């Protein structure tokens, strides 16, 4: 594996102006992805996972504004690039798999044509050859009878098949970075496993960096080499997958692991995370947005968030991180 980062996000902050005030959706989010590597952004709803992806793709809602930060994709800062420049990169260099394929696909265009569109626009395929290549893409995405299915409209296909079409579209131009936003949410576990295998296989084949966004900690643990844990728009912990589960250092990460059903032998072992997400419209948000629900809060938590480095790969944004080995043993892969 090469160590050159495919994408380096530094101190990304995003705000949304709403009628009820400014929502501080992202606060100094930093992480990087190396070439050929899969990382996972995990967190509960409202943690800012999807906003991060949309900000990187330049697809934020008009009410949203990047207030700070850089996202270096090679030599290009995605956050400062002109819309035209970005439009040329999107779909060609960086592409995205959206959460709900049925709403992300064009309902009045056959799936084969939607893939052909991308091939013509981004992969410089002559328009006469595009339909045939689109069929090949469908075959590569594991669709049986692709020549017939290419003429189908999204409503004629099952959820799993629509997701395969999304994958074919996202990978049509052989991008170097793929952002997969909850690609299997709403699919059956059997389909989920097949789709995740497919993404992983194609990523390996193309040497693609993948940012995989999910709320499923167990799925992330299986599919990513590194995990970025988000809470209320902040990155709380960033670690190689094994370290994160063997030794979570941020109190929120530990709580999240303990709340996941896969970790428990019975229902009483599961622990709910106390408190609620803070209201991101508040002007007096504490520097650590977890501090108000944190059992390990100390006075220093009122100071700006630290980036405590445990080792070169493991970073935790906490003044009072968990000491080594306090997590009950069952949570460490005893499922």
């Amino acid at each position, binding site marked *: 594996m090469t160590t050159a980062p495919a994408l380096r996000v530094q101190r990304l902050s995003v705000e949304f102006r709403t009628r009820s005030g400014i929502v501080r959706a992202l606060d100094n989010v930093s992480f990087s992805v190396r070439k050929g590597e899969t990382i996972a952004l995990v967190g509960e709803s409202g943690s800012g996972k999807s906003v991060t992806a949309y900000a990187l793709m330049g697809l934020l809602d008009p009410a949203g504004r990047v207030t700070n930060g850089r996202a270096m994709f090679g030599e290009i800062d995605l956050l400062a690039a002109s819309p035209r420049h970005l439009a040329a990169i999107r779909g060609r260099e960086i592409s995205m798999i959206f959460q709900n394929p049925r709403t992300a696909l064009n309902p009045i265009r056959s799936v084969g044509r939607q893939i052909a569109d991308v091939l013509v626009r981004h992969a410089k395929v002559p328009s006469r050859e595009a339909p045939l290549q689109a069929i090949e893409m469908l075959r590569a995405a594991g669709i049986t009878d692709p020549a017939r299915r290419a003429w189908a409209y999204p409503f004629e296909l099952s959820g799993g098949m629509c997701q395969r079409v999304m994958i074919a579209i996202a990978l049509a131009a052989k991008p170097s970075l793929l952002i997969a936003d909850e690609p299997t949410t709403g699919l059956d*576990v*059997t389909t989920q496993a097949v789709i995740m*295998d497919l993404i992983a296989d194609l990523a390996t084949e193309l040497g693609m960096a993948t940012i995989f966004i999910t*709320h499923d900690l167990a799925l992330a643990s*299986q599919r990513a080499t590194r995990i970025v844990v988000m809470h209320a728009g902040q990155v709380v912990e960033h670690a190689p997958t094994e370290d994160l589960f063997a030794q979570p250092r941020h109190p929120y990460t530990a709580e999240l692991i303990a709340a996941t059903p896969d970790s428990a032998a019975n*229902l009483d072992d*599961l622990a*709910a995370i106390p408190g609620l997400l803070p209201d991101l419209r508040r002007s007096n948000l504490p520097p650590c947005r977890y501090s108000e629900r944190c059992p390990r809060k100390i006075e220093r938590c009122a100071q700006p968030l630290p980036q405590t480095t445990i080792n070169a790969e493991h970073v935790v944004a906490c003044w009072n991180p968990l000491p080594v080995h306090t997590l009950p043993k069952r949570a460490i892969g005893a*499922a």
Partner: protein
Amino acid sequence: MTVLLDLEHVSKFFPVGAGPNQLARFKRRLSGGPERLPKIYAVDNVSFVINKGETVGLVGESGCGKSTLVRALTRLVDVSDGSIKLGARELALKPARVFARDRDRARIQMVFQDAGDSINPRFTAFDAIADPLRRLRHVRGKALKDRVEAVASQCGLPSALLSRFPHQMSGGQRARVGIARAIAVKPDLLVLDEPTAALDVSVQVIILQLLQQLKHELGMSYLFVSHDLSVVRLLCDRVLVMYLGKIVESGPARAVFERPWHPYTQALVAAVPRFGGAATERLRLKGEPRSPIDPDQNVCRFYGRCPISASDCKTRAPALRRFGNRHVACHFAEEFVVQRISPGL
């Protein structure tokens, strides 16, 4: 153990080709073709019991007929065939519309998948919980108010929230309203259709623990429908695995998930993501399920997708056979049973 609900040979078919396809039907009739419409076998000859105080899980992929089965046994739709007995009383013959006003309606209640969609948006939490009490138990006035508040607090809803509308509540609060509404009339059987699918893990834990606690307090039976096997494993005593309208495996939840015998259950369990393990188990299902429209009754429903798919499987459909306290519908069940029971093999 006393049997609460007994389903025998329950089937539910839906004709296809009716409705928008009238023209095709007309043409077929003109050409002297068969009059009979093709049917979707959503639920095909399913039998099982739910005992008093038991939690039964029902798992299977989307389109396997879980929801149709649940709608049939809660008597929201009529069955095509079979018997549904609640205690000694046969319910299958009563049309769903009539059953809606039946005295036993209150004994089977349901918590729907997405509490946000299943609560009338123009009802406050109070109205939502009061509705079944008014209709089924004819509670009025002060007694109604007291009962609603009692149920709400039992479900962890502060009474200040009762005047709110669904859109003013969080997902967890709406889930609580959905549960409070269902248990308000003190049912014997509570059917839960993916009650935590829309919730974050931290909220899911709270709702699951609430359900567990309510079960102890009220002594209800649960039928818990879910595709999240890790939740079913924690909550359920027994599990039924469904595939294309048929039950393919059943047994104690823990045993079934630790040592699945049916090839479909094996693939299902292998597909569940687990902590710590890389996705190395490459037991994957190829392709799509067979068509549920007029399936050949002599072919195993799992044939073609099943890694075994032997010649026997397409000439003779396997019946659900009993092995101790478990049931499996597979010709090759013995191999798995022996293989898994004897250690070291």
